[in-house]
C-alpha cells in the first residue's frame, strides 16, 4: 500500500472510528506503528543491523521493519520503482558510487546532515563527527568496510601460510583454486599490486592503456584457477567447503565465519580495498524514515553495530567506543579495516575512477572472461 492509500485508509478508519467515539485511539495507533521497508545486503551484515538498531528501534517505536536483501541491485531497483511510479523501499543501504548516480538522477533525497542526524555525545555536529569527506549530498555513511582476500588455513602447511596479495597470484607456492568477484573492481587493483605497483599508484597506472593491459596480463596467470562469485555469501561457503583455497570477500563476512562458526579463515590485509557504505533515502520517503535514520546513525548505534561485525563505524565518536564481539571476549579493534597494521598498505577505492571507467573495463573484463 502506498502512502496516499495508507493515508486515505487511515482517514476513513478515523472517520468511522470517530463516529463510534474511538477516533483518538485509532489515529494514535496508526500514527505510531508503521512498516518500514529497509533494503540491505543480507547475511551477517543485515544481522548486525538487526541487532544494533532495528530491534531496539522496533521496541522503541512499535514500527515493524521488513528487511529486503537487494542492496546488490539497489540502483536498478530504485530506477525501476521510480519508473513504475510505485516506490516501495523506504530506506536503502548502498555504496557511495551508486548513491552518486542515484542522486544525479533524482532518485534519492538530498540530505541536510546537520539538521537530520544526531550530534556526537560531546555536541560535535555530524558534519565534523563523520569521517572527512564521507558525507555526500544524498548519502549518510554508516560503516567503513573492506574488500580483502582470505584463505583457508587448513589448505596450506603451517610453515607456509600466505600473507601478501602477491601470494594470491603465486600458483607455484600457493596452489589451489581461488574465488574472486565477477567484476573488474578490486581484481585489477590487486593484480597491479601483485605485479609490483605501489598501492598508492594503482589508479594512476590504471588510467593508462598499458596499465590496464598489465593488470589483465597478471590476472591471466591465475585465470584457470578462478571460480567467479556473484553473491557475497558465496566466498565464505566455498572457503568452508574447501572448494577454494583463497577467496575475495567483504572482511566482515570472513570475520564472522571465523569468530562465530570457528572456520579456519585468515584475512590477508595487504592491499585491502576499503570504502564506505551507508544510507540513502528514496525520493519522497524522508518524512517516513527521518526518525529511524536519526536513531540508526547516532554514535551509540554505530558503536553497537561493531559488536556484531568487524566493520569500522563511520563516526569518529563511535570508533572510540568499539569493544568486543557480542557474547565473547574477542577484541574487535584488531579486526577492523582501519586498525593500524591492517591499514598500512590499504587502497582507498577511487569512486570517480570507477564511475568513469566501469562501463568500459567491465566490458573488457567480460570479454576477457569469455575468451
Amino acid at each position, binding site marked *: 500500500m502506498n502512502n496516499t492509500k495508507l493515508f486515505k485508509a487511515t482517514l476513513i478508519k478515523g472517520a468511522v472510528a470517530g463516529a463510534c467515539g474511538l477516533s483518538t485511539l485509532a489515529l494514535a495507533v496508526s500514527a505510531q506503528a508503521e512498516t518500514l521497508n529497509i533494503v540491505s545486503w543480507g547475511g551477517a551484515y543485515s544481522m548486525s543491523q538487526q541487532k544494533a538498531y532495528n530491534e531496539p528501534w522496533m521496541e522503541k517505536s512499535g514500527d515493524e521493519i521488513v528487511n529486503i536483501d537487494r542492496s546488490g541491485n539497489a540502483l*536498478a531497483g530504485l*530506477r525501476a520503482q521510480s519508473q513504475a511510479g510505485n516506490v516501495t523501499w523506504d530506506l536503502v543501504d548502498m555504496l557511495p558510487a551508486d548513491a552518486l548516480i542515484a542522486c*544525479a538522477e533524482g532518485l534519492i533525497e538530498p540530505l541536510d546532515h546537520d539538521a537530520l542526524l544526531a550530534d556526537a555525545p560531546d555536541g560535535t555536529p555530524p558534519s565534523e563527527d563523520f569521517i572527512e569527506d564521507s558525507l555526500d549530498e544524498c548519502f549518510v555513511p554508516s560503516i567503513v568496510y573492506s574488500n580483502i582476500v582470505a584463505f583457508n588455513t587448513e589448505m596450506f602447511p603451517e610453515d607456509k601460510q600466505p600473507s601478501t596479495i602477491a601470494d594470491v597470484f603465486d600458483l607455484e607456492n600457493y596452489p589451489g583454486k581461488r574465488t574472486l568477484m565477477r567484476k573488474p573492481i578490486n581484481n585489477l587493483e590487486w593484480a597491479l599490486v601483485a605485479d609490483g605497483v605501489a598501492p598508492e599508484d594503482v589508479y594512476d597506472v590504471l588510467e593508462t592503456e598499458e596499465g590496464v*593491459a598489465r593488470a*589483465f596480463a597478471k590476472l591471466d596467470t591465475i585465470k584457470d584457477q578462478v*571460480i567467479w562469485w556473484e553473491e557475497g555469501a558465496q566466498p565464505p561457503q566455498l572457503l568452508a567447503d574447501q572448494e577454494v583455497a583463497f577467496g575475495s570477500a567483504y572482511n566482515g563476512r570472513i570475520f564472522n565465519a571465523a569468530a562465530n562458526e570457528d572456520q579456519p579463515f585468515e584475512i590477508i590485509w595487504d592491499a585491502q580495498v576499503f570504502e564506505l557504505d551507508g544510507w540513502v533515502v528514496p525520493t519522497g520517503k524522508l518524512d517516513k524514515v527521518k526518525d529511524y535514520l536519526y536513531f540508526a546513525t547516532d554514535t551509540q548505534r554505530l558503536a553497537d553495530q561493531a559488536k556484531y561485525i568487524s566493520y569500522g563505524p563511520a563516526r569518529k565518536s563511535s570508533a572510540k567506543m568499539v569493544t568486543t564481539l557480542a557474547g565473547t571476549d574477542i577484541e574487535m579493534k584488531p579486526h577492523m579495516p582501519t586498525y593500524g597494521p591492517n591499514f598500512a598498505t590499504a587502497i582507498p577505492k577511487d569512486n570517480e575512477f570507477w564511475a*568513469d571507467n566501469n562501463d568500459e573495463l567491465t566490458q573488457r573484463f567480460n*570479454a576477457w572472461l569469455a575468451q
Partner: protein
Amino acid sequence: MSESPTAPLKTADGVSLKTSLRRAVRRSKLKALLLVSPLLAFLLIAFLMPLFDMLWRSVDNPEVSTALPQTSQALADWDGASLPDEPVFAALAADLEAGAEARNLGLVSSRLNYEKSGMRSAIMGTARRVDTLEAPYKTALIDINDDWGELATWRVIKRESSPYTLSYYLAAVDRQYSPDGEIVAVPDYMQVYVTLFWRTFWMSAVIMVMTLVLGYPVAFLLANLPLRHSNLLMILVLLPFWTSLLVRTTTWIAILQSQGVLNDMMVALGIIADEARWQMIHNKLGTIVAMTHILLPFMILPLYSVMKTIPPSYMHAARSLGGKPFLCFRRVYFPLTIPGIAAGGILVFILSIGYYITPALVGGQSGRFITNYIAYHMQTSLNWGLAAAIASILLFVVVVCYLVFNRLIGVDKVKLG
C-alpha cells in the same frame, strides 16, 4: 431469370442459396473471430505491446536531446571538423546549470559514458561547479575538464543528440562508431557478444543432437511396446517434464559438483583420487548435461507421436523382402521419422537458445549463454538499451526458427503430454 433451366437454387425466403450460404459462413466467421478477440486483445496488451516497446527501446535515444536541449540544437550545424565555437560551450553551460538544478543529469551522463569513458565525471564534475562559471565558457569549461577540449567528445554528443540511435545494435554485435563516424569492430580485447551468440547457437546444436541421440531409441521403444508397458514407461518421460525447472537444475548441482554425489561415488569406488575430483559443473559440460536432461522430453514426445503412426508392417515387409535389419531401418523406418526429428530438433533448439536459468546456475563462466548478458544488462549494468538490442537480435533468430517450424510442422500439431 428464374425461368432459366439453370436458375440458381433459392431458399424458402427467396434469397439465393449461394448468398444465403455466404451469409451463414460470414456469420460463423464473425462468431469465431468474436470468440478469439478477447484473447487477442489480452495478448496484445500483456505480451505484444511489451515486445514492441522493447524493440522501440533498442533504438530510442532521448537522453542527450532532452537533458542537453540547447547544446543539441547549437551542435546541429556544427561541421565536426574542429572544436565548436563559444555559443556551443555557452549552451552546454546553460544546459548543465538547468540540469544541476533539476537533478536530471544522471541518465545523460550514463548514456554518454557508454560511448566514451570519462563522460560521466566530465558532466557530473562540471555540473557541480557550473555556478562558478563565467564567460568565455570555452576556456572555462576546458579548465574544469580536459574532455571538453577534445573533438571526440563533441562528435559523440552531436551523434547521440539524435532521438534514435543504432549504437546499441552496434554494441550488441561488437561494433562501434569510430571517432570519424564509421562503423568499426571494437578491439579484440573488448569483444564479447558475437562470441556469446555463436556459443549459444553451437551449444544449443550440441544439446539438440544429444537429445536426439538419447531420445530416438527411447521413443522407438515406447512406440513399439504394447500400450500397457509403454504407458508405464511414458511416466518416466513425463515426470521430469512436469517437474520444476529449478528442481531439475538443483539436482544436477547436487550430483555434479565437486563435493557432489557423482564425485563422492567415484572417490569411494577408488576410480579417482580425493584430490583429483572432476570439475563437471560450472562449465560447458554442466550446461550441456543439465539442459540435455531438461529438454529431452521435448525431443521424445514429438518423435514418439510420429513413430506411433508408422505401421510395423512396413519393417516386416522390408525384412521379408530380404533386407538386412540395419538397411531396412535406414532405408524404410528412418526416413519416415524425419518429420518427428525436425519437430523435436527445432523445438529443442528454440527452447535451448532462450534458456537463462540453467546456464546461469550451472554454466559457470564458459557455459554461459547470451541470455545471461541480457539479464546482466537489465539488472547489473543497467544498460537497458543494450539489453533490448541483444534481446531483439535473439528474438529475431527465434522468430525465424519458429516460422520455419510452423511452415514445416504447423504449431497446431503441437501436443502436450
